[in-house]
């Protein structure tokens, strides 16, 4: 019982991550009609916002370790700690949450530049061209990160106060063994918040209404004299920010490395398509569905019945859903079918 409860928590947590990553992708596809293979790279850049802020905050005074003579080994003390003592330590400790503040404008900027400079010219091009150009861009972005940060993952710990586990079991009257990391709970809440914000933005604002109308029928909206192009630029910016924030918040769970975007790329496409192309709700639902099924399939009891099931469950579910529901969970007819 406890173990199933924990696996459902895992599933919700995974699902939140999948949904958040897929959200931007489906937004861009639904509105702009662009298959963005660089979406994973945006996720990765977000995570590296956290890495960068952390390394800026920990710029250190280096005291040479005199016992080592062959090369320069240093004991490093961050200047922030030297100047501000405990306050400095605390700021460094909170580097990951703080980097959200940095990530929002930065990712927005990156998104706008990407859209204006490149993606815009590919709206009317075939999907094949979009795939090639965005894949090329993704490679370039990740190679640049590799050039500056190396290929090895970089640890980005969460603040100390939330580094451990919450006694979820004790709160709910379950066993003492039911604990869950604070940061994962925060991640879950955070993604719910972002998803809700994106939905609210699209459904409650005029801007969002136009964008949704554009998703349905771009030509008509354009004929009505509304500048759709400009709005699309902003939508792309928002997608970049959402992907970036997903990356920032994921950094403590998965120490970032330059390749993490590619690792999530295929998965996020599967989530989007299972949800149904162009459907935000579908992407979120698919994210949670796949997350929970993946967690349950990884249980030893399930694995002993079906060896290797945890390796393929996501793809298996994708196949079954696409066969039962032709356009995924909530896809619309005629979108991305030709």
């Amino acid at each position, binding site marked *: 019982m406890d173990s199933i409860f924990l696996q459902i928590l895992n599933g919700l947590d995974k699902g939140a991550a999948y949904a958040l990553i897929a959200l931007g992708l489906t937004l861009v596809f639904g509105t702009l009609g662009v*298959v963005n293979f660089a979406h994973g790279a945006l996720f990765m850049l977000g995570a590296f916002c956290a890495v960068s802020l952390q390394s800026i905050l920990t710029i250190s005074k280096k005291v040479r370790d005199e016992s080592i003579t062959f090369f320069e080994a240093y004991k490093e003390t961050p200047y922030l700690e030297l100047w501000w003592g405990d306050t400095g330590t605390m700021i460094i400790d909170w580097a990951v949450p703080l980097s959200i503040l940095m990530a929002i404008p930065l990712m927005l900027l990156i998104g706008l530049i990407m859209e204006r400079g*490149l993606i815009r*010219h590919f709206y009317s*091009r*075939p*999907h*094949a*061209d979009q*795939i*090639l*150009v965005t*894949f*090329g*861009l*993704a*490679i*370039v972005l*990740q*190679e*640049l990160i590799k*050039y500056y940060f190396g290929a090895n993952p970089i640890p980005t710990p969460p603040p100390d106060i939330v580094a451990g586990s919450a006694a979820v079991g004790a709160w709910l009257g379950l066993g003492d063994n039911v604990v869950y990391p604070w940061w994962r709970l925060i991640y879950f809440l955070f993604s719910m918040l972002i998803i809700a914000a994106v939905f609210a933005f699209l459904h409650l604002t005029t801007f969002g209404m136009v964008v949704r109308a554009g998703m349905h029928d771009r030509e008509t909206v354009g004929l009505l004299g509304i500048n759709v192009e400009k709005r699309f630029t902003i939508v792309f910016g928002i997608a970049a920010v959402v992907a970036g924030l997903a990356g920032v918040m994921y950094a403590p769970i998965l120490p970032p490395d330059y390749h993490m975007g590619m690792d999530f790329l*295929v998965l996020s*496409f*599967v989530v989007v*398509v*299972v949800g149904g*192309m162009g459907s935000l709700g579908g992407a979120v639902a698919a994210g949670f569905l796949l997350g929970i099924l993946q967690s349950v399939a990884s249980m030893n009891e399930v694995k002993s019945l079906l*060896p*290797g099931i945890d*390796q*393929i469950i996501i*793809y*298996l579910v*994708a*196949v079954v859903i*696409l*066969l039962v529901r*032709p*356009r*995924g969970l909530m*896809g619309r007819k005629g979108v*991305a*079918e*030709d």
Partner: protein
Amino acid sequence: MSMPTLKNDLAIMVLFTAAVLSAPLWLAPIGADYPDLLQKFAIYGIFAVGFNILFGLTGYLSFGHAAFLGVGSYTAVWSFKLLSMNVLPAVALSVLMAGVFAYLIGFISLRRSGIYFSILTLAFAQMCYNLAYSVLTPITNGETGLQLANDDARVIDTLFGISYDGLPSTTLFGLEMTGYPGFYFCAVLLILGFFLSLRIFHSPFGMKLRAIKSNQTRMVYTGYNTKPYLLTAFVISGMYAGLAGALLAVTDPLAGAERMQWTASGEVVLMTILGGAGTLIGPLLGVGIIKYFENIFSAMNVQQLTEMFAFLPDWLGKIAVTLTNPFVGEGWHLTLGLLFMLIVIFLPGGVMEGMRRIAAIPRKLKQRAVPKPTPATEEK
């Protein structure tokens, strides 16, 4: 558009054959004339030519073709282990097996179109990859890859009294399939495969596939059941992939699961688009570019760059080396990424489109003399 005649096709084939067979000569100046890379050009050429029959003609973008490549390789190695070191049964069985897999996967995946189709094929290939890497290890030898062993059965060889000391090599009736003989074997199959693809492109069947690409709904309304055509195209291109996989095992008898990973499927997609999807030669050019980068650019280092720029004055040479170094060796991915972007930005339609534009320059100059409305470019 009139059907090109068999005669035209023969002319193309003569040129193509000459070009492929003389590849070791004309690739020498760029350092790509060693057997392994030549073999890879030919093998991936077959893979891409086959992929292009599906994607180029029907527009159905399969993201799981690497599965057939892997199935072909595994079948071939098993044929070497159980039947004979002769390559012919291995090739035949691999193509057949890949065809069976392609039929099964295609039958299911083709119930959907567009990106839904792409994801279905991707999902099947990823399942094959993940299982081959882990639980199917008894069949695939997992991470290490399936290899030959001294104590393999090789029933047919034993029947004919052929025995080997140490690990045997793959042969074509006694001719070892490594080095240049290996390349020429692959090259002959590439030429045959290309010829078949040419005939398909120029056949009524090919026309129907193109019609599906431009407007499937209309096809259906006119009374055509498109599914059998699509499935045939899918199976044919899967068999090409199986052949390529078999040849990988023929020239180097080891089959690893990575061959089925999505990156491998993605590679053939990129090769085809890069060269020009739907053109006959384009995919081959894409193969050439990507494999050349992977094998030659990745191997450059400061030492070689210094030699390369030795003709420059010392200080200029140093600057040139410093500037180029991030783009070669461990930076070869960066160069490849930039190349993808540049080609697709400036040459929509791939390298072939670029060539067509260059070829059109003289004509344009002539047209400038006699102003005439430019004819609309052919629908892609």
